[in-house]
């Protein structure tokens, strides 16, 4: 029998003042699911970076456009969707920040961080316009086993 998947939602205007709110809510939800403080910190940072991208590159800081954040979870997994109303983007156009020519660029590390901290990350077009970033992190037997950041 499939486990119930509770959901929590947060909707914010496209203003950087609300980024910290998304971070705090994420930390609380991750703790509620049972992630330890360290893991909850990395998960909340991934969400923070996704929300910044949604505000900056997606909605282009248009306060009339909303960013929606949806958390669903079961005993072992948290799934977070960050959705904007922008024009979308092509992942192929995002440069690798680890390439020598990009190492000292002041921007372009957000998506890399998101991928580093989460187990799965998917980008898809949102029906009606915009982008959905869907991120999954599973609990580990002992938190900190896998991710680069935990080394």
């Amino acid at each position, binding site marked *: 029998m499939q486990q119930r998947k509770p959901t929590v939602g947060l909707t914010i205007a496209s203003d*950087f003042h609300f980024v910290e709110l998304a971070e705090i809510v994420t930390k609380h939800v991750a703790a509620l699911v049972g992630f330890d403080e360290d893991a909850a910190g990395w998960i909340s940072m991934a969400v923070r*970076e996704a929300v*910044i991208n949604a505000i900056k590159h997606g909605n282009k800081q248009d306060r009339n456009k909303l960013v929606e954040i949806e958390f669903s979870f079961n005993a072992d997994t948290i799934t977070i969707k960050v959705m904007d109303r922008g024009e979308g983007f092509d992942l192929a156009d995002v440069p690798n*920040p680890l390439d020598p020519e990009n*190492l*000292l660029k*002041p921007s372009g590390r957000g998506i890399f961080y998101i991928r580093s901290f989460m187990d799965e990350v998917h980008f898809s077009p949102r029906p009606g316009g915009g982008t959905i970033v869907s991120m999954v992190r599973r609990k580990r037997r002992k938190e900190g086993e896998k991710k*680069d950041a935990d080394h």
Partner: protein
Amino acid sequence: MLTIKQRDAEGVTILDLSGRITIGQGSAQFREAIRQLMEQGRNRLLLNFADVSYVDSSGIGELVSAYTTLNNQGGQLKLLNLPKRIKDLLRITKLLTVFETFDDEAAALRSFQ
């Protein structure tokens, strides 16, 4: 919110940073502080991260900007007392290979000589 306290030792400007270097206010404060120091001709900077609780990709970007700007003008920027999480952020983006980092202030100051 970021608090920046400035002191000088052995010809090096030390910035004791406290708080968050994140998109918006913290990053802007940091950028402005570096700009003012460079205007004053202070180009040997040691950033003390002991009381920095959080840095995001924007804050990392500001650090990289400060580093390259100072380097291009013959200056130096080094990092002191990096908390583990911030060190992790630098490590996974290969920036620990770029920045000189120290856990001991005296050793950091000696490295500028």
